[in-house]
């Protein structure tokens, strides 16, 4: 957890990411960012507004609508001396670039016997409830997490987003970052002035508790924290643990928390089936089985294409109320 006494500034999630990119670009001239409408438009989410003024169009590079094409350029440029950040806008477009990500970027280091490196960052977004329907709302971080050779970052707070983004840029491997698009403006938090980096693969306990562990990623961290507050009112002490990266995965922090509380819900905005919650739940059951009071529960996006209508879409994502109910039931209160 961040020591808030030292941090005086509050930044939005989006501004923290912009600051991370700007600082890394100032530090290293080999860092460039390319994507659709990233320059003057500052991305469709307006997260990068102003960066082009400082770094120019040679480093904040507008591309054609060719996600696979410019991701491929990112892979080749990363191999040959650059540290590119490619911005694919919506995580749903991951499928368009998947050959470049999974067959190329992820495997080049291994296939070459460790000779070539691919220090590439891929920015994507995730998150439903923006009324953007089935092709602009998915949370697909489980996909790259499945592929050896990739690292996957799913930050939940401005502080984490900045520190993890900077670590991703400095990493010599391809890293995919999923930014929760609803959080860009909605989530604010303390971010220190000084340079800091959060290592990939270190979970963070967002709230300490003793009765139940809520393992939550990205958008679900806020949901878990709200649920924890509701649980506190009925006398249940919930611990909220955020893995922050799905790979590398800090198994120890997750397992240690569950060993302490003896109960666990894993929550994620990705599809429930064959997803991140299944992976983490199995790790908990393999490593903390005899400390558990009951089965690990999982909560994730419903197994439906994300619908458009607000009343339908809202039903697809786990709510704080649902988490509260499940946790209460597990604690027999």
């Amino acid at each position: 957890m961040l020591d808030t006494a030292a941090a005086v500034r509050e930044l939005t999630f989006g501004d923290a990411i912009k600051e991370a990119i700007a600082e890394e670009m100032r530090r290293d001239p080999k860092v460039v960012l390319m994507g659709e409408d990233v320059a003057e438009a500052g991305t469709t989410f307006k997260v990068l507004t102003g960066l082009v003024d400082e770094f120019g169009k040679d480093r904040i590079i507008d591309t054609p609508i060719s996600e696979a094409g410019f991701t491929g350029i990112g892979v080749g440029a990363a191999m040959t001396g650059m540290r590119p950040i490619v911005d694919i806008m919506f995580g749903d477009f991951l499928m368009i670039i998947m050959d470049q990500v999974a067959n190329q970027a992820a495997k080049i280091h291994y296939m070459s016997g460790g000779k070539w490196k691919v220090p590439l960052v891929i920015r994507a977004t995730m998150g439903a409830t923006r009324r953007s329907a089935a092709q602009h709302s998915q949370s697909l971080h489980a996909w790259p997490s499945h592929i050896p050779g990739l690292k996957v970052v799913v930050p939940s707070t401005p502080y984490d987003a900045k520190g993890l983004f900077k670590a991703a840029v400095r990493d010599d491997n391809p890293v995919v970052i999923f930014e929760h698009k609803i959080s860009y403006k909605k989530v604010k938090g303390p971010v220190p002035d000084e340079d800091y980096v959060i290592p990939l693969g270190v979970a963070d306990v967002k709230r300490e508790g003793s009765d139940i562990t809520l393992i939550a990623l990205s958008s679900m961290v806020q949901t878990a924290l709200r649920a924890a507050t509701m649980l506190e009112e009925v006398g249940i002490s919930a611990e909220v643990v955020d893995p922050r990266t799905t790979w590398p995965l800090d198994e120890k922090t997750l397992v240690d928390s569950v060993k302490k509380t003896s109960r666990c819900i894993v929550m994620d905005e990705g599809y429930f089936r064959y997803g991140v919650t299944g992976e983490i739940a199995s790790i908990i059951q393999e490593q903390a089985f005899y400390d558990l009071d009951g089965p690990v529960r999982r909560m994730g996006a419903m197994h439906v294409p994300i619908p458009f209508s607000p009343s339908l879409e809202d039903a697809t994502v786990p709510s704080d109320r649902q988490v509260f109910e499940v946790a209460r039931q597990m604690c027999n209160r």
Partner: protein
Amino acid sequence: MATKTAHAQDPALQIGKEKLLRLYRQMVAIRLFEERVNDLYTRAVMPGLAHLYIGEEAIAVGVCEALRKDDYITSTHRGHGHCLAKGASPDLMFAELLGKEQGYCKGKGGSMHIADPETGNLGANAIVGGSAGIATGAAYASKYLKLGRVAVCFFGEGALGQGLLYEEMNLAQLWKLPVIFACENNGYNEYTHFSESTAGDVNARAAAFGISVETVDGQHVREVFSVASKYIERARTGDGPAFLQFKTYRYHGHHVGDVARAYYRPKAEEQEWVTQRDPITLHGEWLMTNGIADRAALDAIQESLVKDMDAAVEFAVNAPFPDPDKVDQDIYA
């Protein structure tokens, strides 16, 4: 085509005796290498798949002899010729093909993934058209970092069916990147004649982007070298990409196991290319007619290469397999 009458004023003489002999030597080296691959594969010493480059040698040699050592190439599943022509060492190539620890990729890549930073080889790629982005990205990095390097993307005409190629050609021309799209048209997408898969005019596809295009006799090594030199230097000085279509033929099947192939390719057609259009025979005859080498000199080149290749095979056959403990090394840098 290749039936040009040689005479004292043949402009190819300007290439110079040393280079003209080197073009010959390099083609013979690839031929001998591939004959040994065929032998190792049919004797079940070589695992996996083997796609032979025999018949197409003039393209890799003519193009790579026009490149600097620090220029880049990307290669294909039929890539042994490109790797050797760019300077790979046959012993480490054979070792990789046999899955040995001393191979270029420590046995982790194999025949279809030879990569070598020392010679600018960004890697052979087993996804058809999959390296178009990597080559274009290397060209982008060369331009951004002002390295003056050119990237050559070798691909078969089968890659004309892949969308990524067109995204990269658009980006390459838009950004005036020093990349050469080298299309080796051997007439067959695996087991299908390319006329059954390719609509319209191939060169017109690249020309539509404003890219310079040329069709080249891929069996005529001096022509390949001269045309490649022209476009490579043009790219190096900032005039952007080129698309070169090399007309060629693979003497063997799609892979070594593709033996009964009369159903898709007439034997008479194969015989015609082998007997009338062989790049090594044609260049050898030209060297003799022009007084650059006599038969004895050409035989001596061949004999010396036979010794080298046999020694390289012996090295690879005797080399140890990697320790299974190394299976999970080199996944991350």
